[in-house]
């Protein structure tokens, strides 16, 4: 679209003035990161799709509350994190939380010409990592996803989680150590194999 060059702030202003079509620019621009954040927090593709749709709709409805103090992406991730946390809690209560089945992980970046054995190993590794993420507390999982998967700055993570930057660092270290403990058998096996 011709409005792709417009920044988030300008798009937000247009939407706030009543131009609902400008919101599409924001959706296209942030859909992937938002969806991945939700998906990694939930570990379920279908659930993630549903929650992501709710997140964007919720963002549109409450966009008049966005004052521009932070980036739109930070504000959007905050909404996504809240929605995903609620859904994650419901899924845990329903004992429906599970690692996605085959094929889900390879959507988009899958290499159709890769070695099948290596592909199977990668898929298994991904499932283990996802299972480990699902085992972490939601705040720790969110910090790791934002920091290690999406390379979000400490400040942005702090704003999104509404905690100080120092707290983000300590929580990030704690989360990484916890994840290392969860994934130790995985990389120990690999180390032994290598």
């Amino acid at each position, binding site marked *: 679209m011709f409005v792709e060059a417009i920044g988030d702030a300008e798009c937000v202003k247009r939407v706030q003035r009543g131009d*609902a079509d400008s919101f599409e620019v924001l959706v*296209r621009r942030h859909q992937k990161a938002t969806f*991945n954040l939700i998906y990694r927090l939930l570990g379920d593709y279908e659930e993630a799709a549903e929650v992501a749709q709710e997140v964007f709709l919720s963002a*549109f409805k409450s966009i008049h509350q966005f004052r521009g103090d932070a980036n739109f992406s930070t504000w959007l991730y905050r909404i996504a994190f809240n929605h995903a946390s609620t859904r994650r809690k419901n899924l845990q209560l329903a004992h429906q939380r599970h690692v996605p089945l085959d094929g*889900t*992980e*390879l959507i988009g*970046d899958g290499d159709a010409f890769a070695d099948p054995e290596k592909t199977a190993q990668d898929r298994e590794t991904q499932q283990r990592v996802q299972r480990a993420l699902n085992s972490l507390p939601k705040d720790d999982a969110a910090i790791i996803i934002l920091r290690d998967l999406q390379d979000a700055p400490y400040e942005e993570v702090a704003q999104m989680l509404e905690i100080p930057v120092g707290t983000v660092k300590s929580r990030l270290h704690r989360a990484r150590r916890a994840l290392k403990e969860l994934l130790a058998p995985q990389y120990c096996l*690999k180390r032994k194999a290598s």
Partner: protein
Amino acid sequence: MNCEETGLQLSEFLDRTLDGDYLRNLREHLAGCPRCSEELAGITECRRLLSSLPAVEPPVGFVTRVMADVREAAYRPGILERLFAPVRLKMPLQAAAVVLIGVLSVYLYQKEDTSNLPLTPITPEPVLSVQQESTKSETVKPLAAPVNSPLPSEAKAVSTEPAPAKAPSAPVAAVPKAGITESRLESRPEKFKSAPIPAQGVTTGQEGSSFPGDLARRGLGSPVEALRQPGVRPAPFAAERLSLLSEPIPDYELVVRRRPPQRADQDTSSGSHDSLQKQPGGVAGSKSAEASRQTESPSRGNNFPLEILWFSVPYDRYEQFKKELAAQAIVESEIPVAVKEKEASFIVDRPLSIRVTVLPPAER
């Protein structure tokens, strides 16, 4: 630097946000501490595993679905509109239209009814009957009331009470022996002609003198004045001759013209002006007579309006009635209206209905 202090700095070291003395001290500690080095290696491996997770694509049509929801939310009605959504404005408007049409219909119907009725209550002039003498064999047949006659503007309310005993303006001697019924209706403007008048048993307490077109005071009306005396009672109209939509058809229709008044002093003298009162004979000699009077409208001057009188005269007394009438007024025409169409035997069985149109005196 010990291992406890190193732990918090390992993440920053991996994120390359550690600098200065912290970075140098950490490197020195890691070089001499296998435990911290192994932990660093483990965290690095975790990061590598995390980074192996692919970035998934949103489902196909995700943006379309999101924007559909967004547009629906953007054009969603407000709180007030949603509150009144079950009661759409269209329905109350339709209901109001129906109610309005109904109210207007009732209003117009009532208005039309009112316009069709006279403005004042219908008050026919007294219908009086005089008892026939017991020796007479004829019975007074009721006379059809001029049901569609106009009514006087000063007509009083209809009363079922008989006329009060009132001193008649005519002498008692003028009372005919035969029973004569006078039915008198005063005219109103043309617009009220269609109003039906229930004639049966209608009478009024206002009699004679209040009638502006009183024939007795105009020099004509002996049959009428003769009946105005105490003791008379209302005579019913013949139901079979009533017509709700038109005037009754007289047997004879006479047009007479008043004689010009003699002198002013004679007019003002009590009763002396009435030539009929000086003639006790006339129609008073007939066994049965009925008359009704109807003033249509003032035609010439204010003193002598055009009047229509109805008489009921026995068949065998008609000639006598005509003579008496000719003695009091100038008979200008005599038209047998219904007589032409009816058999004589039928006419003999009942009194004749005579319509007398009294014209004002001829101008000199």
